[in-house]
């Protein structure tokens, strides 16, 4: 029996290397998320106690207590409903100013949720009262 074993120069196929490298590159490009800061933008009023007279019927008072319960114009409201109610009020009166006042012990989360609701109702004039 004759073994015909001719050695034909063992080579690792390298032609696909570029493809593999590109595949990896694309994979990491797609899965990498560059950490961008995002959040609710707001502009604070300039310093000094400025008082602007606003007609009473152009103001909506929004009070948040320490348990995270919301009082919208004397009406107890659940936070999820604010954007609907404020949206309706804004359609009736576009000059509406929403004044948000939170109790000092209110959780920041509840406050942010209320601001988010107001943003969702496209309220542009949001006034933040000092909690203390």
């Amino acid at each position, binding site marked *: 029996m004759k073994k015909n074993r001719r050695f034909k*120069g063992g*080579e*690792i196929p*390298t032609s696909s*290397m*570029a493809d*593999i*490298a590109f595949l*990896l*590159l694309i994979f*990491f490009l797609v899965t*990498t998320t560059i950490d*961008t*800061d*995002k*959040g*609710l*933008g*707001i*502009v*604070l*009023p*300039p*310093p000094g106690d400025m008082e602007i007279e606003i007609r009473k019927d152009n103001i909506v008072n929004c009070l*948040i207590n320490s348990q995270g319960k919301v009082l919208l114009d004397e009406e107890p409201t659940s936070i999820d409903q604010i954007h609907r109610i404020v949206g309706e009020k804004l359609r009736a009166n576009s000059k509406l100013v929403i004044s948000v006042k*939170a*109790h*000092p*012990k*209110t*959780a*920041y*989360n509840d*406050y*942010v*949720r209320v*601001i*988010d609701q107001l*943003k*969702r109702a496209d309220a542009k004039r949001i006034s*933040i009262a*000092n*909690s*203390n």
Partner: protein
Amino acid sequence: MKFSKKTKVSSEIPTASMPDIIFMLLIFFMVTTVLKEYSGLPVNLPKAKRIEKLKSKRHTVQVWVSKEGLISIDDRLMGVDDISMVMYDKRVSDPQLVVSLKGDEEAEMGLVSDIHENLREVEALKLNYSTKTLVD
């Protein structure tokens, strides 16, 4: 006696794939490198839906507020009253300053309100409540 040594095994290292290997290494290190592992305080950011992206990191200053009421700016812990001092310098050197407030969900509004007042004092008026995206 004559030795005829005709071993014609090519003894070259294949270099055609070298750039690919280098690229792969490059990508590996790019992915595994973490530039800054930890900054600020451990916070649980609140979630919100109608959010906007901050335009550039260069004009942003991050103010961290933990649920215990600790405040940190530029990896330094400080009291509420120091904020206006620190922010004044930043505000002077960069008028386009945006303050990114990274507050914990359980932080108290009394403290956040104090921070508002301190920021107003030095006219750092552009504020951004940093949140996560709410998925529902």
